[in-house]
């Protein structure tokens, strides 16, 4: 009997041979990460339980200030200060307003073959590198800081074979929306989405990141892709270890999805149940457009948006908010002249942060407003008012819609 890549990764970290899905194991992750959306709860809990005791493995523990950046209130400033003090006291790694946590982890730490846990549901992103990434909570990370270990149900996997491919203006973002639209928002609860086939192996690493990042929106604990040489050229010098699923590995279920001729897709309010081709909702007026987030704030997304926006203006009374996913991406965009194109088009360019997508601080929408966004979620009130609507689409569809002032399909019949 064969094993999935996920079973092999948990076998590696637990030091137990032949780990299979359904096993409950304890293990030490290669990296842990917490951000300012929840770290204050964890730090308070750690302090009240263990006082000034040293955390285990501080050199593998990362704190990232990225959600409410810069601080939007005195209480947020107090949360950030608490994180800085804790990181310094404990000798942890700290990234302070350098970018969105998952982008920072990939830029600096993640290697193929590793298991990374993060106090953020989009930790599922790291599967794009051939690693396992899993979301955890505050109690989990406090337990991990104290003991160096975590408990985990080793998950089953769903095999999603991608056939064919897409080309601009259809992107990996449209692919993952189409997959979740077909499978449903709870199809993969507690399981891993393992993407296989020519369709995913022809994708670049940034495209695979887009794919894996939204696996959690289909209920998955992680989205994962078997690593290949593209991983090494994307992240050279890391201690990569390549694992792959055996030909006779056991999957909970298998799907085959043909990407040829795929339409640009959009998730309509207020859940991932409502994913349709963009053409179905064309013409709906918008108040705001957002390009950024851990899903679509990378340089490739900014380039695609700039190509659309160059020489055009954002529609009057519509605001376009753009937030590069990290300082490195921001600087690259500056060097390539993309920021100039955005400003010329009338966009508001924010510092790297979770901003509109997480809805805790900047770039929010009000009562009765409609947002088109490259963010990760369209839950009611996610980006501001409970009386607003969020439509999720690619950077290209979002940029085209910002110019037109209405939801617009980038592919014309």
């Amino acid at each position, binding site marked *: 009997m064969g094993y999935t890549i996920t079973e092999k990764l948990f076998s590696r970290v637990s030091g137990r041979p032949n780990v299979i899905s359904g096993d*409950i194991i304890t293990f030490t992750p290669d990296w842990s990460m917490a951000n*300012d*959306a*929840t770290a*204050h*709860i964890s730090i308070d*809990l750690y302090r009240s*339980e263990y006082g000034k005791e040293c955390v285990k493995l501080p050199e593998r523990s990362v704190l990232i200030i990225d*959600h*409410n950046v810069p601080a939007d*209130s005195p*209480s*947020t400033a*107090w*949360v950030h200060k608490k994180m800085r003090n804790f990181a310094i006291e404990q000798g942890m790694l700290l990234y302070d307003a350098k970018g969105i946590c998952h982008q920072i982890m990939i830029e600096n730490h993640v290697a193929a073959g590793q298991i990374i846990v*993060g*106090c*953020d*549901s989009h*930790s599922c992103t790291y599967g794009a590198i051939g690693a396992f990434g899993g*979301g*955890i*909570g*505050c*109690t*989990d990370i*406090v*337990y991990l800081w*104290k*003991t160096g270990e975590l*408990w985990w149900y080793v998950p089953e996997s769903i095999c999603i074979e991608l056939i064919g491919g897409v080309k601009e203006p259809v992107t990996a973002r449209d692919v993952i929306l189409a997959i979740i639209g077909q499978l449903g*928002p*709870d199809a993969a*609860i*507690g399981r891993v989405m393992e993407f296989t086939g020519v369709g995913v192996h022809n994708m670049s690493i940034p495209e695979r990141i887009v794919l894996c990042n939204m696996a959690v929106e289909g*209920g998955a*604990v992680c989205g994962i892709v078997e690593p290949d040489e593209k991983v090494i050229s994307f992240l050279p010098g890391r201690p990569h270890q390549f694992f792959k699923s055996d030909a006779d590995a056991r999957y909970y279920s298998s799907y085959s999805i043909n990407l040829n001729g795929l339409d640009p897709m959009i998730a309509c309010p207020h*859940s*991932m*149940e409502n994913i349709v081709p963009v053409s179905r909702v064309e013409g709906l007026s918008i108040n705001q457009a957002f390009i950024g987030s851990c899903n679509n704030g990378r340089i490739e997304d900014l380039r695609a948006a700039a190509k659309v926006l160059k020489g055009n203006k954002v529609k009057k009374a519509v605001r376009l908010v753009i937030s590069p996913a990290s300082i490195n991406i921001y600087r690259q965009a500056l060097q390539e002249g993309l920021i100039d194109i955005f400003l010329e088009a009338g966009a508001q360019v924010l510092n790297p942060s979770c901003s509109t997508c*997480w*809805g*805790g*601080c900047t770039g929010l929408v009000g009562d009765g407003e409609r947002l088109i966004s490259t963010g990760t*979620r369209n*839950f*009611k*009130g*996610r980006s501001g008012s*409970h009386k607003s609507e969020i439509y999720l689409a690619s950077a290209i569809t979002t940029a085209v819609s910002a110019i037109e002032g209405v939801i617009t399909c980038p592919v014309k019949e």
Partner: protein
Amino acid sequence: MDKNNKAHTGKAWKVGRHFDTDQILPSQYMLFPTIEEMAKHALEGIRPDFIPNVRRGDLLVGDENFGCGSSREQAPRVLKYIGIETVIAKSFASIFFRNAINIGLPVIVLPDAVDRIREGDRIEISFEKGVITNKTQGETYTFPPFPEFLMGIIKVGGLLQYAKSRS
């Protein structure tokens, strides 16, 4: 459940499918200094009647994919703080389930009970026996006991207490 595993009677609050953690606690309250301050805003966008009327011992009845979305442990924590006894649903998002167990908030997967229980029904739960009694409708629903490892965590009130009890 309390330390003696005594059964409580509470009122059922029903919510829909894919009830996400943003509905339980919106992002803009997550950085508030205490769970007490956050809890004042639980479910405020979708059920503004919840906070003024909820009582200790009440329970939430979800549907499929309860607690989907964000990993925010604030979500189960505010529910526990308010006094929600348990959440019953057809299925739970993985991280919500994990967080609930870790803080000692028992959650029950029982599709049949979800279909039978109506908003406002008086419900009594015995975790030891695995029985939900619907006092309003005069029905009982049974659920399988939690796996030993999870019951061990729930019984002592959460993962950190569990670790302490074993050291």
